[in-house]
């Protein structure tokens, strides 16, 4: 009996393309093989390797929630060969998907807690999966606060959903843009994300914080959370590292004894502090 080929992707048809921001798109993907579609599940936090056939594979989180069946979504920025190949695709085209890989956000452990989501720019997609997962199970949790910022109004992703979250009474959304990134009709906040978090003054009491953003944002946000009294065990992040195989073999994402594709990408700050800063 031979092993299955773990590098063989599923074929996915692009069902919908949303232009989120300059250079940033969301793909809604459906399994070509319906049997695969019904057998397949994932949990929030996991990622996959998406193929642009002819160019190669790239790693993105699964940006949709596991509670939404029948499709998965990914959001990516066009930065290189594979993402350029993907950006060229149209609705109806076929791409590849391997996954789900990686560990998960342990949302069951957060029942009864307050949730604080902090995201910057193109790093909202991994947290968006968790947000919708939690909103679809709203009564598991207490207060849900989202702090999300981007360089400018145009760079905000999921603009439609931001509006939805803004209008929901059971979500506290603080949306911000960097100074200089506001437009005349912008009604949200202006200021860097760490500052907005500090101003919001969230209580660490019974609260889990999820932080995802460009390295500089994370670097400046963590001290704010520490000052507010959040413990390293209560702060979660999701890492990105260069990946190729996604299954803990090719070595690229290896950081200390950890493989980001297997032991991550979700880490608590306490776990991150055990790893060498090679990510």
């Amino acid at each position: 009996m031979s092993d299955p080929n773990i590098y063989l992707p599923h074929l996915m048809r692009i069902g919908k393309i949303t232009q989120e921001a300059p250079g940033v798109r969301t793909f809604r993907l459906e399994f070509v093989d319906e049997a695969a579609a019904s057998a397949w599940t994932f949990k929030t936090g996991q990622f996959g390797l998406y193929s642009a056939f002819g160019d190669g594979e790239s790693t993105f989180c699964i940006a949709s929630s596991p509670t939404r069946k029948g499709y998965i979504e990914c959001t990516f920025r066009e930065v290189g060969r594979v993402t350029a190949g993907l950006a060229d695709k149209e609705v109806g085209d076929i791409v590849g998907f391997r996954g789900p890989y990686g560990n998960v956000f342990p949302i069951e452990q957060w029942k009864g807690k307050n949730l604080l989501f902090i995201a910057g720019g193109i790093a909202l997609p991994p947290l968006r999966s968790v947000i919708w997962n939690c909103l679809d199970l709203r009564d598991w949790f207490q207060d849900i606060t989202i702090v999300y910022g981007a360089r400018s109004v145009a760079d905000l992703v999921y603009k439609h959903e931001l509006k939805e979250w803004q209008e929901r009474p059971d979500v506290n959304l603080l949306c911000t843009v960097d100074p200089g990134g506001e437009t005349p009709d912008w009604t949200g906040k202006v200021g860097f994300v760490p500052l907005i978090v500090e101003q919001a003054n969230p209580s660490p009491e019974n609260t889990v914080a999820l932080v995802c953003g460009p390295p500089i944002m994370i670097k400046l946000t963590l001290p704010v959370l520490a000052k507010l009294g959040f413990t390293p065990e209560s702060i979660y992040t999701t890492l990105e590292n260069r990946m190729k195989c996604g299954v803990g073999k090719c070595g690229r994402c290896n950081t200390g004894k950890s493989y980001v594709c297997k032991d991550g990408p979700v880490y608590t700050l306490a776990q991150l502090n055990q790893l060498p800063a090679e990510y």
Partner: protein
Amino acid sequence: MADLYQLSSASLDALFAALTADGRRILAPTEADGRSELNPVTRPDQVAKDYLQTTLSAKETVFPKVERLLSYTQAPGQVDLVDAEPHAVPTVLFGIRPCEASAFAALDAVFNWDYRDKFFNARLEQLSVIGVSCARRDDACFCTAVGGGPGATKGSDILLTPMAGGYLAEVLTDKGRAIQALAPDLFQPTSGVDKAALLANVPTAFDQPALTAKLPALFDSPLWSEQSLRCVGCGACAFVCPTCVCFDIQEEADKTGGRRLRAWDSCGYHMFTLHASGHNPRETQGARWRQRIYHKFSYYPERYGQLGCVGCGKCTRACPVDMNLQEHLVEASQVNP
């Protein structure tokens, strides 16, 4: 528990013939231009005399330098995937050293620790190893420091130790017994052979458990950038290494279809960890050299319960600037955190 036999030099001809008749390919070190490499042979006289080790390692037999993972054809709105078959051929590796034979376990750890790699497994399943002990060593060898030895049996299905008139043969595994069964008369039961007297003397070069315990405290030491000043950042060490397993996946395609290939890669290259944003977690050669050491001597043991190095010295011999691994490890052993 090994069964002990004597095998005469003359009977190797018959053994090779039996293996070939059984449909097995025999790979052994052969000599050309002063170096020895693994090549297909059918007779023992084709095997290199008096070689220390091959330049490249035997990992090619289970983890080739290029390997197809899948292919596909495409047309507008359609992609058809074709799974790839490893085409593993029954193979006997004859004449590799105990250090190299023990390396297969390190490869297995990565290829099977969670997801199982069908390509590696298909080849490993078809592979039998007839190792040959070492009667001599050179300055690059340090097997005894990493739990190995010139006559170690780990990884061999049959281990031959050269002696007067032929070899001491230890038949170690089911695969070894299957080979023995092809020509049982060649294996004369024996006892009382002093194997240790037939082996090279390889004094332990450094205290590896102590080094492994010390490495976490040495992470920020300037030692690594000092040791790696002369490193040129090529992949020779990783590619000749029998335990190095890092790989790349490359796509080669045109509008009508393509294939995905696996190729050897090295953590020594600066592009290995380079992000699309331009950020590089291991920006300097010192950080990359440190990764090589730590991966083999710290992360591997922590994760897989075994070392990622067998002390064969191939990296040292292949390095264009003599980055002698043993020397660097001895130095690291002596440095205070």
